[in-house]
């Protein structure tokens, strides 16, 4: 028997999870629409299906903690507190974007909310997370560093180098692997000798666990607990969150390497409707109240799209700015 939701968080917090997950989903689906219209160009990797990981994990961290992620990071930035309209403007390549239109979908960054970047070389952010954790400890700052990456990153050298380093230097890093089972089109058993990712950390003596990444409450509890452990011990910890992306690797990928049966099975585990049902079943909210939340999110994303559309392009002279201090 799962514990009642109210034993985990007060109603307001529980409803916020739903709002954040819905906002993330809505944002991504509108991105797909804007990509089809040609307003968003380049690579676009959508997060639909994985929302419980970003929402649960972010809630389990302190606001002062650093977060780094890979290139499927819109939701992580928005859930952390990035303004949806400035993220959308970034995707449109506009001057009002969160990185002035220079980063795009894969490189969101907002130091005001300690969101230390989306990185698009697989595994590239892991050593940087270790360095941030070192700097924080050196400066006596009360913060840990949470580093998100996909299952594709675990066969990169930086994964192994960074785990070894974080444990060797005893640094407060929480590694969170979002295992959606596919590195682009290669299923994990075709790329990894040991597909049970959390077991790989035994080589570095880093404690690890696996959590259901389709369950926002499970992710929240695991990350909150792990983050406290990292904070208290000053040592790394590792979480593997199993999840699924409902769309292809990017908008350029029709995802033909996955069966519809597999997709349908994971659809039954969709974190949004399942969590909505729990909220209603436990009497925390009503369908009507959730409808109102959803309507609010849609307005916010509408506004984000309008802001992006109406925003100016960067000036040509801008290309030479921000390269050197």
């Amino acid at each position, binding site marked *: 028997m799962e514990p009642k939701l109210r034993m985990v968080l007060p109603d307001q917090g529980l409803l916020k999870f739903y709002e954040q997950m819905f906002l993330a989903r809505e944002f991504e689906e509108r991105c797909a629409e804007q990509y089809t219209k040609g307003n968003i160009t380049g690579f676009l990797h959508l997060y639909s299906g994985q929302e419980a990981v970003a929402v649960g994990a972010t809630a389990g961290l302190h606001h002062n903690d650093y977060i780094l992620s890979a290139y499927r990071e819109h939701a992580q930035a928005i859930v952390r507190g990035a303004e949806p309209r400035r993220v959308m403007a970034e995707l449109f390549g506009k001057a009002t974007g969160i990185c002035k239109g220079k980063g795009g979908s894969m490189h969101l960054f907002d130091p005001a909310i300690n969101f230390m970047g989306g990185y698009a070389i697989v595994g*590239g952010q892991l050593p940087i997370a270790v*360095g941030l954790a070192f700097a924080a400890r050196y400066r006596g700052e009360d913060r840990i560093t949470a580093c998100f990456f996909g299952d594709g990153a675990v066969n990169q050298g930086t994964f192994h180098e960074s785990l070894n380093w974080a444990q060797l230097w005893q640094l407060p890093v929480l590694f969170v692997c979002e295992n959606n089972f596919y590195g682009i089109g290669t299923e994990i058993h075709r790329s990894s000798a040991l597909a049970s990712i959390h077991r790989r950390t035994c080589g570095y003596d880093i404690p690890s666990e696996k959590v259901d990444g389709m369950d926002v409450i499970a992710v929240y509890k695991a990350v909150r607990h792990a983050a406290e452990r990292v904070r208290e011990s000053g040592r790394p910890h590792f979480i593997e969150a199993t999840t699924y992306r409902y769309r292809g690797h990017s908008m350029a990928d029709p995802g033909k390497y996955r069966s519809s049966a597999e997709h349908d099975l994971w659809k039954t585990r969709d974190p949004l409707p399942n969590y909505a049902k729990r909220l209603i079943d436990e009497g925390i909210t009503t369908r009507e109240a959730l409808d109102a939340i959803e309507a609010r999110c849609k307005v916010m994303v509408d506004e984000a799209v309008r802001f992006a559309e109406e925003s100016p392009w960067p000036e040509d002279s801008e290309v030479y700015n921000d390269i050197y201090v």
Partner: protein
Amino acid sequence: MSEMTYRDAINLALKEEMRHNPSVVVLGEDVALYEGSFKVTRGLLAEFGEERVRDTPISENTIIGVSVGAAMGGLRPVAELMTVNFALLAMDQIINHMAKIRSMFGGQTFLPMTVRMPGGGGSQLAAQHSQSLETYFMHCPGLRVLYPSTPADAKGLLKSAIRDNNPVIFLEHELLYNSKEQVPEDPEFLIPIGKADIKRPGEQVTIVSYARMTVLALQAAEELEKEGIFCEVVDLRSLAPLDEGTILGSVRKTGRVVVVEECWRNCGLGAEISSRIFENCFDSLQAPVKRVSGLDVPMPYSRKIEKICIPDKESIAQAVRDVASGRY
């Protein structure tokens, strides 16, 4: 002033900057307990302790990545890669991360970090340990690249690099570590980044060079003077940004120029410098630009044949004679 080696001048720069700013940390393979593969970090661990002087695993890409993160988090890391050859293992973090982060994140962060790399050939270390890879870094926007030829320059430039708020590649030539000269002891002695130095003034032929090639160029110039050929030796010091003004100013004066590079000739920095000279002061030239370069071969071990792969005093002198006499 006191006489010291290139090695000790770099060592002193590190110590002074660590005393100057508690955010400066030194990390790399064997830099702490072993005091550096070339003993450049001697005495650092004893003076500054284990938190600031840190041995790392043999994980070059992550040495740079951790330094990038540390710089983003408010420190001023000075990483040592044991030799420039191993930087090739770290090119992802150097080129895709260190050089890009400020720009791709819209200028919202900066990386005040320095990466020291001993390099160059001439010690019979064969193909994997004798490379001159300076152009690899010069090619990439977002980096500064420095390569001193003298102990005083090494000290002043490294101090500027550590104080600079941009990522700096600081190259050190392995064969210069024991070279000596008078070096200012003033802890505020700095050499600005982006300024070449005319190491020897002259009227007839400009020799543009850097690092160990400058030392050889000066030896060649001394010999040539006896033959009545007066050379101006421009020591680049800063490879990125290049001090185009000093290069072009000298060429406009002499009208004849030899560019000396230790790196491979193909796409070498001599090609870039020659191109800038042709584009900007073609009318001043009395002879085509001549290049003296490393041979386009993987470095052989045997000292008999290694020698012919690297420019030497005689090959530089001969190039100058050719340019001066019109035999080009």
